[in-house]
């Protein structure tokens, strides 16, 4: 008897003491990731050919110096104001319509809806009868998502002509699909006991949804809506590139005629617009109890905290009135003729366009080139996200409030000296992140083309810079929302600040960082098309050529390549993310 016991103890000791093998799935995936980055660098030809163009430094310097004296003439300022309002208006309308689409699509794309409709909600497993319509809707939603707003814009120009509707729909369609996907996930994660109670007592599914699931999920839905609004602002600026008006358009015009002083005026307007919208949105999301984009993405709604309501909730009222006033202002600036949506001309143009596009021109001799360009595009997205991820991780710590006195890394100090430097560092990194995300990626690419040869590298760096700003900010939010208890207890046990950082902050934040990076990788992949449009290589470059020669039949083939790539990246990223969760 004692012997057996002894053996059991030995066994358990052996079990706990063996180190987990290093050859696990995670390290395998990491190796895979590193290999992908290395081969992407090889793709750029970094060590084989000239990449940096030393001749361009003087122009670049000239451009930078212009930032010190932006053009502040009254005419340009009024133009800037108009352009800002147009951009804001596009974003407003785009968000409003995409949220409406998202709400309808989100209900239809949720498992819980189909389970309610087919009365299979009591089963643990998702029943096959309910799977079929759910799968179909999910698949339908994935196609608009795979195509970038800019491509949608180019399509809508062909059927609406020069019209504000182009920009608004170009934001609405893909964003509506993304919103629908996220909304459906939120609905599926919302506790469903009240819903089941209603359904069981004979309430019809739509009514049951309106009285149980939707109000429960409301704060999260609203929170995500504000996040979408931030994205819409950036997107509205990008759409200027195809001539939709607004700040992006003015920047492009001034860049083409090399009026750097004007460009900076527009840039400052863009910083202001992005900065204030991001600030407002973050504040609101914080008070709605779902501050973190990833909370919506990784879905742990059951455990998450309830919104804390205090006097600051007045802020919500204040902010939404500002929003309403802004919308009112916007309504004067752009007039939207909704009748154009079903006007005979639109339908006729749509028919003509479809005739021009189909059948797509699938030429087997082109496959080699397409494959080549696809690998380049993939490499561009990998480099971009590697740069954005690394940069974001470096900048997010100083951009979070942890260094300030009272923050987790500096809890005791109250010296004004620390306050001063902490605030300076915080403001500096935050504005750095704001600048890099406020400038649209194609504009970054055009600036980089001063000093780099065309190719995938300037495209990758441009995308990297833009996404760095977004990632850095999201990561800083993650750090600020970290559970402070383990960090405080480390401190209480006598750990120094670096130790708290290394053993508390970093391990807690890293999985979320990686999840964000992977999620942004998907976005980067889609965005490769827009830097391609300004000549930064990859499939986007080919697309530009096909666009300028109106070769729509071949363009469809290129677009199909893009969609396949996007789906591939989405799948990879999703399986990575499952691993880190």
């Amino acid at each position: 008897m004692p012997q057996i016991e002894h053996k059991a103890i030995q066994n358990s000791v052996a079990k706990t003491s063996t180190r987990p093998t290093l050859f696990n799935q995670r390290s395998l995936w990491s190796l895979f990731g590193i290999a992908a980055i290395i081969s992407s660098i090889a793709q750029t030809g970094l060590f084989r050919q000239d990449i940096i163009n030393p001749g361009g430094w003087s122009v670049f310097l000239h451009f930078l110096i212009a930032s010190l004296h932006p053009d502040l003439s009254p005419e340009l300022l009024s133009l800037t104001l108009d352009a800002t309002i147009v951009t804001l208006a596009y974003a407003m309308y785009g968000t409003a319509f995409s949220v409406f689409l998202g709400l309808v699509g989100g209900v239809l794309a949720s498992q819980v809806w189909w389970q309610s409709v087919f009365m299979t909600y009591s089963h643990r497993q998702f029943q096959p009868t309910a799977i079929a319509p759910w799968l179909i809707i999910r698949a339908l939603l994935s196609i608009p998502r795979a195509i970038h707003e800019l491509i949608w814009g180019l399509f809508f120009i062909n059927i609406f002509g020069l019209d504000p509707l182009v920009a608004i729909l170009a934001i609405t369609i893909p964003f509506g699909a993304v919103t629908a996907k996220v909304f459906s996930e939120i609905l599926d994660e919302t506790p469903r006991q009240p819903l089941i109670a209603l359904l069981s007592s004979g309430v019809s599914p739509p009514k049951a949804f309106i009285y149980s699931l939707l109000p429960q999920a409301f704060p999260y839905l609203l929170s995500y809506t504000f996040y979408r609004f931030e994205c819409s602002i950036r997107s509205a600026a990008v759409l200027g590139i195809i001539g939709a008006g607004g700040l992006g358009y003015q920047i492009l015009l001034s860049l083409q005629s090399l009026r750097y002083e004007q460009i900076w005026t527009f840039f400052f307007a863009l910083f202001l617009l992005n900065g204030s919208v991001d600030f407002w949105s973050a504040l609101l999301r914080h008070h709605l109890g779902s501050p973190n984009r990833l909370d919506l993405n990784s879905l742990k709604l059951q455990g998450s905290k309830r919104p804390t309501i205090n006097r600051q909730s007045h802020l919500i009222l204040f902010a939404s009135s500002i929003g309403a006033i802004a919308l009112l202002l916007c309504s004067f600036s752009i007039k939207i003729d909704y009748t154009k949506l079903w006007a005979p001309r639109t339908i006729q143009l749509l028919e003509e366009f479809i005739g021009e596009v189909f059948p797509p021109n699938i030429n087997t001799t082109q496959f080699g080139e397409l494959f080549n360009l696809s690998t380049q595009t993939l490499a561009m997205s990998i480099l971009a996200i590697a740069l954005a991820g690394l940069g974001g991780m470096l900048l997010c710590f100083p951009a979070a409030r942890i260094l300030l006195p009272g923050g987790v890394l500096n809890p005791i100090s109250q010296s004004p000296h620390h306050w001063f430097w902490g605030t300076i560092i915080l403001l500096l990194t935050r504005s750095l992140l704001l600048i890099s995300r406020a400038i649209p990626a194609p504009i970054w690419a055009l600036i980089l083309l001063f000093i780099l040869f065309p190719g995938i590298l300037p495209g990758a760096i441009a995308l990297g810079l833009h996404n760095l700003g977004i990632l850095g900010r999201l990561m800083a939010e993650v750090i600020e929302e970290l559970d402070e208890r383990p960090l405080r207890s480390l401190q209480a046990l006598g750990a120094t600040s670096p130790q708290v950082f290394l053993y508390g902050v970093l391990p807690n934040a890293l999985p979320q960082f990686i999840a964000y990076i992977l999620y942004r990788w998907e976005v980067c992949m889609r965005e490769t098309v827009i830097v391609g449009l300004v000549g930064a290589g990859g499939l986007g470059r080919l697309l530009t050529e096909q666009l300028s020669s109106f070769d729509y039949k071949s363009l469809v083939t290129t677009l199909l390549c893009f969609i396949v790539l996007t789906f591939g990246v989405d799948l990879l990223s999703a399986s990575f993310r499952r691993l880190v969760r």
Partner: protein
Amino acid sequence: MSVGIKSMKKKLLCGIVFFLLTLAACSPKSSETSPSGETKNQPFTVGAIPDQDPEKLQRLYSKLATYLQKQLGVPVTYKPVTDYTAAVTAFKVGDLDMVWFGGLTGVQAQLQVKGAQAIAQRNIDNQFHSIFIANKTTGLKPIQNINGLKELKGHTFTFGSESSTSGRLMPQYFLKQAGVSLNDFKGQVGFSSSHDATLKLVEAGTYDAGVLNEQVWKSRVQSGEANLNKVEVLWRTPSYYDYHWVINPSVNQRYGNDFIKKVQTALLKLNPNVPQQKEILDLFGAQKFIPTKNSNYAQIETIGRDIGMIK
């Protein structure tokens, strides 16, 4: 706490309702849009492709609109467009009735809109040239004939915009004639997006050489914006037809049968001796406008097909 939630919800609800109301308020009254019969008041819409100082083009174009409105007796508006492709598309769908196109885009527009007519060009457009330029530090020397373009092999090179006739199509054609393919250059060929950008990029040495339209080159040399200590002319191409006004045939139905003729006359009548009209001509870099016709651009079409810009 729960009271707090309730009051918040109420306020939120108020905010949302206010939101929706304003949204409803800004949707235009659809009843006001005229049925298709009443089109007299629909403005005659003019556009231009901004490939030379687009920013100035855009901000000064209203002068032409005012002039045309006075001459034609119908409302005229100017719609700005950022790029070539959008301009052609807008012309095709009928959002632009008359556009100042480049040679290639004009042909693309004529091919896409049945009956579209080229009606006027500047006095320089029937004898248009491109200028190959190089940065002086590269050691590239002016060349005597087309075969000299071979010297560019192994150097970096930039075109203007993809769809530009003088900044891309014709230069690429002449390069091809000289036996220089785009792969012969160092690195990838650049597309600078405008003639001014090409000039600046070559001047700065970002690219060893580039090509731009002669008119822009001349005016930048005149104004001193081109630094002749840094850039030099390598070669002036043979002449070809370039920029021209293309008008949509549907305007005749809308404003009367001789409308196209009227527009043409109005353009040709622009007089450099009248200060206000001179301003418009200066904007285009022209002394005056002269008539043109579709068949003048047959060569451009052939070359466009050859290079793959027209399918």
